[in-house]
């Protein structure tokens, strides 16, 4: 392999690749990280070419968890795809359900009762808390801070999952949203449980941040590592906290103003450097905003039906046409593109997976860094292989 092969694909913001002149540095080392490497968050593989310890080329390899989810969606009815969406990003089944419901509601022109919209917002923000808490814990694990932060994060996650289980019957595979509403009406006791969780979450974050955010080692490991330029991030379709960490104000809760989000007062935190530390910090700040949204939503939760009484679940056949619906998931823009030919199954069922598309710029962020940095850069992108490989 010659050095001229190693210039990155098209990266105006990519790091400089050092040319190799002397025979002393002539050998490049190709390392296959994954699919069983413990730092790759599942069955993800990176083929990393190293010059010494510096990454000069990185090619991700996908597909170890591929099951052709989209074909499954074409072979089942609209409603039967709902539980499959849980399996995409199995940490965030509630937001996957919601995105799919939004796409079908756009396709069929269904209305959603106000109470259901509030419950959806409550569940989506709880999912965001859950995802970002887990991510912060995993990122610390990747930095070498073994065990303790992750266990603290998982303790809080379990409290949210208990509430999901009480409402939907399942901790992670919730299958809760429906076209035109939600499946069951939350009881007053459940609402009280959420209120208790929300009040306790701020103090937990304070504790978590006191231990980690100002930690000297973590700052040394993450600041300036894996910088991403905003122009490249926009061009590469990066969404979610990774995009906002570069300073681009793009949050679908504000841009599309779907559901009842316009009724809530919240801010969109933005990063300044686009590095790993910013990506971590954006998530902590987003959790604080989520707590505020949850407080407002719980205070204003209206009564009324949870399902549109005219919504038809069995024998559901939307008219021919197509629709693309998207929401702001915790990992970025999760969207569903559906084409209907008037039959009981979608003619085309496409998932826009945020963590798959966010990986487009993984190579650009890792070039010039060491393998140990690549591990935390990947950790800060936040991927779930169930969604990447589909």
């Amino acid at each position: 392999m010659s050095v001229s092969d190693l210039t990155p694909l098209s990266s105006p913001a990519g790091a400089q690749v050092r040319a190799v002149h002397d025979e002393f540095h002539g050998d490049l080392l190709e390392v296959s990280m994954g699919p069983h490497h413990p730092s790759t968050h599942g069955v993800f593989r990176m083929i990393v070419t190293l010059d010494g310890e510096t990454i000069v080329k990185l090619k991700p390899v996908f597909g170890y968890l591929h099951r052709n989810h989209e074909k499954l969606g074409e072979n089942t009815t609209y409603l039967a795809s709902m539980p499959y969406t849980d399996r995409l990003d199995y940490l965030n089944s509630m937001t996957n359900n919601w995105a799919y419901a939004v796409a079908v509601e756009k396709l069929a022109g269904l209305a959603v009762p106000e109470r259901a919209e509030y419950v959806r917002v409550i569940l989506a923000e709880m999912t965001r808390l859950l995802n970002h808490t887990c991510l912060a814990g995993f990122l610390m694990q990747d930095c070498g801070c073994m065990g303790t932060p992750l266990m603290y994060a998982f303790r809080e996650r379990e409290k949210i999952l208990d509430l999901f289980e009480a409402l939907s019957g399942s901790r992670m595979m919730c299958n809760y949203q429906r076209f035109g509403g939600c499946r069951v009406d939350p009881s007053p006791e459940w609402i009280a449980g959420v209120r208790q969780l929300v009040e306790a979450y701020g103090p937990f974050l304070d504790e978590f941040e006191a231990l980690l955010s100002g930690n000297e080692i973590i700052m040394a490991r993450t600041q300036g590592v894996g910088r991403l330029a905003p122009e490249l991030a926009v061009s590469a379709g990066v969404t979610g906290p990774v995009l906002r960490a570069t300073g681009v104000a793009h949050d679908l809760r504000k841009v599309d103003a779907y559901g009842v989000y316009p009724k809530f007062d919240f801010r969109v935190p933005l990063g300044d450097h686009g590095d790993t530390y910013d990506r971590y910090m954006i998530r902590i700040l987003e959790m604080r905003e989520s707590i505020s949204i949850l407080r407002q939503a719980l205070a204003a939760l209206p009564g009324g039906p949870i399902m549109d009484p005219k919504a038809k679940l069995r024998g559901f056949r939307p008219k021919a046409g197509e629709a693309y619906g998207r929401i702001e998931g915790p990992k970025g823009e999760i969207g569903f593109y559906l084409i209907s030919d008037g039959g009981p199954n979608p003619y085309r069922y496409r998932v826009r997976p945020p963590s798959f598309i966010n990986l487009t710029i993984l190579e650009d962020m890792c070039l010039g860094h060491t393998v140990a940095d690549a591990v935390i850069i990947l950790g800060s992108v936040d991927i779930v292989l169930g969604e990447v490989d589909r």
Partner: protein
Amino acid sequence: METVEQLRDRLLARFPGAALTVVTNPSPSAQHSLVIGHAQAVEIATFLRDDPALRLDQCSNVTGVDWPDKEVTETTKVTVPDPAGGPAKVVAQTSKRLEPGYLEVVYHLYSISLRHGPVILRLRTGNRTDQVSVPSLTPVWRSCEFQEREVYDLYGVQFTGHPDLRRILMWDGFQDHPMRRDYVEPDDYQWEPTPHGEVMAKAKQHYPAAPAAPAAKEGGAA
């Protein structure tokens, strides 16, 4: 934001003679789309990205759709004069016509800076067998890189100008394109035949019947 028809007219003024067709979407979502020809696809995409009124800087979603060959039955009414001189008869004639299929690549474009969208572009291949190439839009939007690879992998669309067109979800030695409507799973199962009728039938079909054992010779070797 301007409608798809206004956008088409503006594009036609900018690129005279470009092949542009509006596809209307009858569903309540009303997300209409624009089919663009191959010749000027990259120029049009660059224009959409850089035009100050549009600034479609984000290509959010890229996906393939397979439209197989369709047999269309048409019924026409023909008036046949009666040779005996009576009143002319109206006879319904049916004719069958094969409408050729194609593969389609759909791009959903949004503007992050101006906060509008989607503008939906469609590129169509000539047919589903030998004219399956379309121009790649990866040079315009980097986000197409992995998604076009996915469309190539699962649908078999060849993207000319793509910097690294390889399979992405299936493995390199895989032959077919599994998201096509007429995809048939290869008969390469390794299952243990269990005494269920359906499984036994599949196993019988899969494993050819063992050749009849040759009749043992009486004391042949001795």
